[in-house]
């Protein structure tokens, strides 16, 4: 073993994974800064090093201002974070059950389509329609999540493969559905759905105290926070959560203990799918008001990074989702104020995940001490 490793090992000390996570974010920002400077070919070519640095300063300050700099920015961050939180919990819960749910995108599409249908066939009142529409999203996502669960339990087909494939199936099924009379907006020829009723749209979260204008975030965030709370309860207090985690960490021991592996596999995917379906429904009722083929965007994939970054814990997943949401809104502001493309945000997120996946690298860079060498593993259980 190399000497640096030994030296590091001998200085071992306790350090929480929270510090690692924060350091990973800082590391990513530093590398991001280098990328910004180096990619500023024009200014560097002209020898305007100072100008390149001031562009960097502008970019990062725009990132901050665009995410938390004003009420409107904060509101945007809240709206961006909401689907990340819910879809992140979906992926995290699957992780805890030992399942790798790459299908959150497809489940969001399935759930969102169901929500859209309830959204336009009814016309209020909101108190009935919104819960019904979200329930439809839950059921739609759950049914779509059941497919890989049943396939795995019955035939052993790996969920990574099946969920990826089901994402395509969902994507093209929704394309077809949006072309049918049932869904298609009458005055349009492209695949776009009817509008949901005004009553079905999620109200502004602070609308009831007259802040709807200044802080236009929709109340999906409340649903998201409820999902996080429910996820916490599920993991820490529920009987089924205990079974899920035992199964996720050691399937042999779970079977030995009399738990039914096949049932847990199916139920795990159904619950994860249902949660992702709600995320899809929230996007429809909170953001768009109608469905398109691409309304889920890359949220389902980003949710994997969210869960990894949050180590699949309830609070961790929530905070990493908020970080992703903030980067999203900050990135937009950055694109407006500078020449830097919003894709830099994708690079930053990738860097964060990479640093999280390589805790030893982070520890080596920052020369921190740690008792446990976290493998960045997300299948860990209880209280981890």
């Amino acid at each position, binding site marked *: *073993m190399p000497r640096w490793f*030994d030296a590091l090992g001998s200085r*071992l*000390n306790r350090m929480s994974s929270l510090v690692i996570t924060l350091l990973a974010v800082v590391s990513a920002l530093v590398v991001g800064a280098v990328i910004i400077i180096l990619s500023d070919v024009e200014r560097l070519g002209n020898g305007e090093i100072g100008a390149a640095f001031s562009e960097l300063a502008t970019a990062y300050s725009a990132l901050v201002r665009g995410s938390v700099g004003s009420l409107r920015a904060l509101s945007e961050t809240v709206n961006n974070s909401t689907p990340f939180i819910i879809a992140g919990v979906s992926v995290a819960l699957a992780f805890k059950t030992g399942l790798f749910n790459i299908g959150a995108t497809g489940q969001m599409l399935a759930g969102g389509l169901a929500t859209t249908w309830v959204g336009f066939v009814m016309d209020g009142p909101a108190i009935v329609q919104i819960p019904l529409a979200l329930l439809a999203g839950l059921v739609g996502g759950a049914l779509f999540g059941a497919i890989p669960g049943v396939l795995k339990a019955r035939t052993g087909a790996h969920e990574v493969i099946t969920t990826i494939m089901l994402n395509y199936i969902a994507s093209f099924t929704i394309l077809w559905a949006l072309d049918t009379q049932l869904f298609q907006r009458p005055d349009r020829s492209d695949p776009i759905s009817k509008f949901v009723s005004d009553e079905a749209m999620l109200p502004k979260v602070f609308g009831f105290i007259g802040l709807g204008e200044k802080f236009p975030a929709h109340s999906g965030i409340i649903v998201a926070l409820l999902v996080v709370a429910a996820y916490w309860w599920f993991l820490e207090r529920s*009987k089924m959560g205990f079974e899920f985690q035992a199964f996720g960490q*050691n399937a*042999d021991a779970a079977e*030995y*203990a009399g738990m039914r592996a096949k049932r847990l596999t199916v139920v795990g995917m159904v619950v994860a799918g249902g949660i992702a379906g709600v995320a899809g429904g929230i996007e429809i009722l909170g953001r768009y008001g109608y469905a398109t083929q691409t309304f889920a965007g890359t949220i389902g994939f980003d949710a994997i990074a969210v869960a990894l970054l949050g180590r699949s814990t309830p609070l961790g997943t929530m905070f990493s989702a908020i970080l992703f949401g903030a980067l999203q809104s900050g990135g937009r502001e950055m694109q407006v104020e500078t020449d830097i493309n919003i894709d830099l945000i994708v690079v930053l997120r990738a860097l964060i995940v990479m640093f999280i996946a390589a805790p030893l690298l982070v520890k080596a860079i920052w020369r921190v001490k740690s008792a446990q060498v976290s493998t960045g593993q997300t299948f860990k*259980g209880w209280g981890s």
Partner: protein
Amino acid sequence: MRLDLVDITKSFPGVLANDRVSLNVSSGEVLALIGENGAGKSTLMNVLYGMYRPDSGEIRIDGQPTTFQSAADAIAAGIGMVHQHFMLVPVFSVAENVVLGVEPTGALGSLDIAKARQMVKEVSDKYHLDLDPDALIENLPVGIQQRVEIVKVLLRDAKVVVFDEPTAVLTPSEILEFFEIVKSLVDAGKGVVFITHKLKEALHIADRIAVLRRGTVVGETTPTQADENKIAEMMVGRPVQLVVSKNSAQPGEEVLSVSDLTVLDPDGRTVVDDISFAVRRGEIVGIAGVQGNGQTELVETLTGLRAANNGSVRLGGDDITVASPRLRHEMGMAHIPEDRQRQGLVVGMSIAQNLVLTRYHSPEFSNGVSMDWGKVHDVSEELVKNYDVRTNDVDNLASTLSGGNQQKVIVARELSRDLRLAVASQPTRGVDVGSIEYIHSQIVKERDAGTAVLIVSTELDEVMALSDRILVMYRGKIVAEVDPKKTSAMDIGLYMAGSKPQGVAS
């Protein structure tokens, strides 16, 4: 060559793994290094092999102080190590594995496989290892794979060979062959360090025995000066009862009855072949046999983890052949599984959670939806106290416990309720001497309380010490039923190998 470890100290956060340890070994002798799990044996050997650097102390070779920066330095200095887990490439041949890293090359750096074969053959002949250089590793039994590791070490000119728990993976006959190999190494002038926690083996093969406890050498002795009891006492720090003390059994009615049980593996091979036997209330029945003769499958079928292809299993008169593991559990069957890490525990969960792993769903701990973790905690504290699990907090992860204490968690979970039948598979595998004593006493206590007990173990000593009746399994069949008081270990060993002792009619 003479190798000295002088005042080696190595600490990890919160643990002093080695505390001023001094040892020496010379050419032509066997030093046994014995100690419980966690006594610091592995740390010491990693220091010797250049994997760790000691905080203080030094290694001397023929009196010259040396430092090893890596395993390569240790190898260059003539130290070879045969690890417990072999470092072999399964799809490569013996010759290819042996020369990995020191490949003989011909023109343009091409691999000279003929030379490699020749090298293996020479060493194999010299030490009577009987190796086929062209055999693929994956086709070889564990005992032969170990010889390949030995050849690897010898070809790198090792003068001192360290064996880390070499017999843990071997069958009884392979162990005897292994000892022959050790003798031929010693005859050829090698020094041997033999790390083990098995007292008998140390006494059998070693010239000197060093006992390690809590990171320090608590004593050095020789097989002529010491016996098992004395060494066990040195290891544990208190007198240890090595013989299981029990009264004769008072068997009652049949609790488990197995008739004509046949089990096939997924490939369709018969692994349990038309077995019938019964275990009565208040007796311990032991199943002896070399690993891989169907015991694992038999236990899995009895406990509901594997389906029977033919025959029936009855518990107290009820047919449970197709009952789920949970139903069997609820009917009063306990199962101590053979592999605690793989099956018996979820090591990433807390001790308390592991203590209720098989009964978390009972009304005592759950209303069907949520868990009463407070109750689990209280019950766990009680169990930990009653079953002598050494931990300061039941909310610690099970992975923080030593092997012996992990096993006690399983024993506590499985035996701490009213039982009709206890099935214990390898109940003390990889467990330290002190814990073995305790676990055995708990099993006997369970028998005396009127439970039918079935013990499955590949350790013949354990089966003989615990059982009131012994069934010997060989190739899926029960080939003999013997009384441990009237039968010698030698005879049972013959049954285990598939033959019959002299004087027994077929």
